[in-house]
């Protein structure tokens, strides 16, 4: 049988980088084919070539055996290729109908035929279980529903090759499960799907076959029934990766961080944190689980002095630091790995060595009174780059030139290389690949075992389940439950993230079965 789609020897060079190096890929009719690789491996580049957003330097594309040129999205759409981008390509102020028809509008004379399109959308949503109201504006929809709109957009154009770029990155576990159901149903109706991911577990659960890409090259292709996580991880990273952490039980000590009845406003002056209370002890990791936008960002900003507290108190190591300045809080021994590393964690144009002392530059040995000691700063940088395995030609290059994983290592090096009592880590591994995730997780655990209190905020439930000793579920600005990590299953936490109470979650979802901690999937 001719494959639906075949890529042969696709090569794409960007200045200084070989993004795709003679890549071959075959997609059979009605299969879900996973494209697995670390960030920067070249997956998205390849798919953008297929969708006509980039032009390959070499190589050929065959669709149903026919050699094809794809010069732009219009060509791709005409060939039946549809793409759901990682960052949704939806216009928030337009309705679902308008977004779906954009670029392929039905008209009656001059006038847009919204009714006909809405009817088509209803029909598509019924056939595939993609429930959505065509007349609602996209800005009023949740992330999961927006993704459905993206899929409807593709189906509306009668695509039979569907590309999804990291589709679960923004979803809750339940939403991800719904998505998988939809994709399976599409497969059974003959749609061929390319599923881009760096999450091993998803790939194994969903895909029929998987192609692994590393540094722009295909390193292997296998049916998923013959694959397992360890094997895929090794192919992806190029060395053996520890998929589970050896985590000795925590030995909680004194309370280091305590906040009571905290109230914090967001940028729109709404109450984002609404009466949250929590204690974190020395030598334990407390994981804050929650769907994004339930106040986690504002909570962390308030704890680190970046956002005013309206009500409530924060104490760190017995000292009241409510509405204290970030410097005072830093001086209390607090390390902060911020959510947006490029915005809040680093000064991108500055060299690595300056970024490494950005919160200690005024202390000896980096400064004597007014004068900065550049030599001491450089020496410290040499040492930390070694110790924290930052891959860089030198510590003098601007931090902007590093990859995401190495940028994060610079932050980790800065925050962990000084004596600390409390580590606040917000999405510490977002967007990183397996190798870097493994590294950062190990460092966080190391700090815990040295007696540091750790507050870990993450949207990745796997990360929380794997690292945390206790889990605090944040919902609508409050902690709805604080439980020992061993007592709940992932499904139960997922339910609570969606608003269920602890009792409901414990009653309905499966109990925890395995004590094995998979943290890098």
């Amino acid at each position: 049988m001719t494959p639906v789609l075949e890529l042969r020897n696709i090569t794409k060079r960007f200045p200084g980088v070989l993004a795709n190096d003679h890549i071959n890929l075959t997609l059979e009719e009605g299969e879900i084919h996973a494209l697995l690789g670390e960030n920067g491996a070249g997956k998205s580049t390849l798919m953008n070539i297929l969708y006509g957003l980039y032009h390959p330097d070499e190589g050929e594309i065959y669709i149903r055996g026919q050699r094809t040129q794809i010069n732009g999205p219009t060509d791709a759409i005409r060939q039946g290729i549809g793409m759901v981008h990682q960052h949704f390509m939806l216009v928030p102020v337009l309705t679902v109908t308008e977004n779906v028809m954009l670029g392929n509008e039905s008209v009656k004379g001059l006038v847009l035929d919204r009714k006909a399109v809405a009817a088509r959308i209803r029909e598509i949503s019924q056939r595939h279980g993609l429930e959505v109201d065509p007349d609602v504006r996209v800005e009023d929809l949740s992330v999961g529903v927006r993704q459905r709109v993206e899929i409807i957009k593709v189906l509306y154009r009668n695509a039979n090759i569907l590309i999804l770029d990291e589709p679960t990155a923004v979803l809750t576990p339940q939403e991800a499960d719904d998505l998988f159901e939809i994709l399976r149903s599409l497969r059974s109706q003959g749609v061929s799907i390319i599923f881009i991911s760096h999450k091993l577990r998803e790939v194994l659960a969903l895909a029929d076959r998987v192609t692994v890409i590393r540094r722009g090259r295909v390193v292997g292709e296998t049916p998923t029934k013959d694959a397992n996580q360890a094997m895929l991880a090794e192919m992806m990273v190029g060395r053996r990766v520890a998929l589970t952490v050896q985590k000795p039980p925590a030995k909680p000590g004194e309370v280091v961080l305590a906040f009571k009845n905290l109230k914090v406003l967001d940028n729109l002056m709404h109450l984002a944190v609404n009466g949250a209370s929590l204690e974190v002890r020395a030598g334990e990791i407390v994981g804050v689980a929650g769907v994004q936008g339930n106040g986690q960002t504002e909570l962390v900003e308030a704890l680190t002095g970046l956002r005013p507290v309206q009500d409530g108190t924060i104490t760190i190591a017995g000292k009241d630091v409510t509405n204290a300045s970030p410097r005072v809080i830093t001086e209390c021994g607090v390390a902060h790995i911020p959510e947006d590393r490029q915005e809040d964690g680093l000064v991108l144009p500055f060299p690595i060595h300056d970024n490494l002392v950005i919160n200690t530059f005024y202390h000896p040995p980096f400064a004597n009174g007014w004068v900065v000691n550049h030599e001491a700063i450089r020496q410290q940088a040499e040492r930390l780059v070694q110790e924290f395995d930052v891959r860089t030609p030198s510590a003098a290059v601007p931090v902007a030139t590093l990859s995401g994983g190495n940028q994060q290592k610079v932050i980790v090096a800065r925050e962990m290389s000084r004596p600390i009592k409390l580590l606040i880590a917000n999405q510490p591994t977002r967007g990183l690949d397996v190798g870097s995730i493994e590294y950062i997780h190990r460092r966080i655990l190391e700090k815990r075992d040295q007696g540091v209190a750790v507050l870990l905020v993450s949207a990745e439930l796997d990360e929380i389940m794997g690292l945390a000793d206790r889990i605090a579920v944040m919902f609508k600005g409050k902690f709805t439950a604080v439980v020992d990590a061993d007592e709940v299953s992932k499904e139960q936490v997922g339910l609570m993230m969606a608003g269920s109470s602890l009792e409901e979650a414990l009653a309905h979802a499966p109990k925890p079965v395995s004590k094995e901690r998979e943290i890098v999937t």
Partner: protein
Amino acid sequence: MAVTTAPAAALGAYAARRERRKAIAYGVFFLLVAAAIFVLFVRNSAPGMESTFKLNPATRERVIEVPDLVVPTRETLLVLAGLAGLLGVYQVVRGFRRVVLVLGLVALMFVAAFLVWAVRDKSINLLGIFTFAVAAATPIAFGAMSGVMCERSGVINIAIEGMMLTGAMMAVIVSSVTGQIWFGLLAAVLSAGVLGVFLAVMAIRFRVDQIIAGTAINIFALGITSFISQRFLQPIPALNSGGVFPKVAIPGLSQVPLIGPIFFNQTPIVYLLFLTVILIHFMLFYTRWGLRTRAVGEHPRAADTLGVNVFKIRYVNVIIGAMIAGIGGAYFTIGSVGRFDEAITAGKGFIGLAAMIFGRWTPFGGFGAALIFGFSDALQAKLQVLGKAQVPIPTEWLLILPYLITMIVLAGVVGRTVAPAADGKPYVKE
């Protein structure tokens, strides 16, 4: 990262308290307006005075006559003050659900009170004020429409002023030379369109900062028109006498009492404005081109991934927008006075841009805002005619007052305005 909706905790105690404070502030403001009407106007009028508003055109072509509106000055003012006061008390105690509408109403009552007081024991032709207001609003509204066209597709056009100025001059020159006033209008459209091409290429192709590109066009237009005006138009009258579009009464419609003389006994340029407003509204919200324009102005990459040509849409919109500004420019010369003077547009292009923002980037909103600005102009002109004894306020203050009221009303009624998300951001294809 995709935006998730704000938690429902948003309406916590803090938010509620803040809403309440805001509501009380509105109420206090209404009470202050009531007090102002009382102190400024009621106390400065005597019992028995009457204010007369004429509601028929001054010229003789009227068909259906309407009786003049005569009101007792002091009593009317007392009623207006009392009403504003009642609204204020209710707002403080209970609070209106749609308080911005009430704010508009209160502001309107203040303007009415001011008028009633200003014409105590005299008369004023209210119809004349409105007719003049529509005429004065015309170039402003064309400016606003030009802005809507450009910014809806994501290109900021602050060069409207310069485009109008160029259009104004070219209209009078071509009209003078050819003797055909419609050719003058065409020249205005085309010359402004050329500036539009320039702005489009700078903004879209070369991705120059749009404010700077627009400012460059404005400075260029001011310089070149002033030069040509001094060098040729002032010394050679044959080049600077383009004639004026005559008023054309639309049969039937122009005879409707009140509305007819105000809207339907105007020059063709004014009718062109009405058509433009309706047409842009229709195009923007009901056609394929409009959907694509709005998408491109909000999220060009999304449009691009669906095969919409972002650059083409922007070029077309900016150039058409510039041409619309050109029509507005023609109004200054062949639409009203028939000759060109230096800087004749006097900042109306910028006011048009303000009207567009107040009108929330919608054609009808922009038109409405332009009408309010036009009314300010007309009111101030008429009040000056009444004389110092009647309105003992310095002319400069009279010039400010209507604008001030406009700002308050529009800031309140319109609230927070949101520009198209990609407005002013050049699009870079990956």
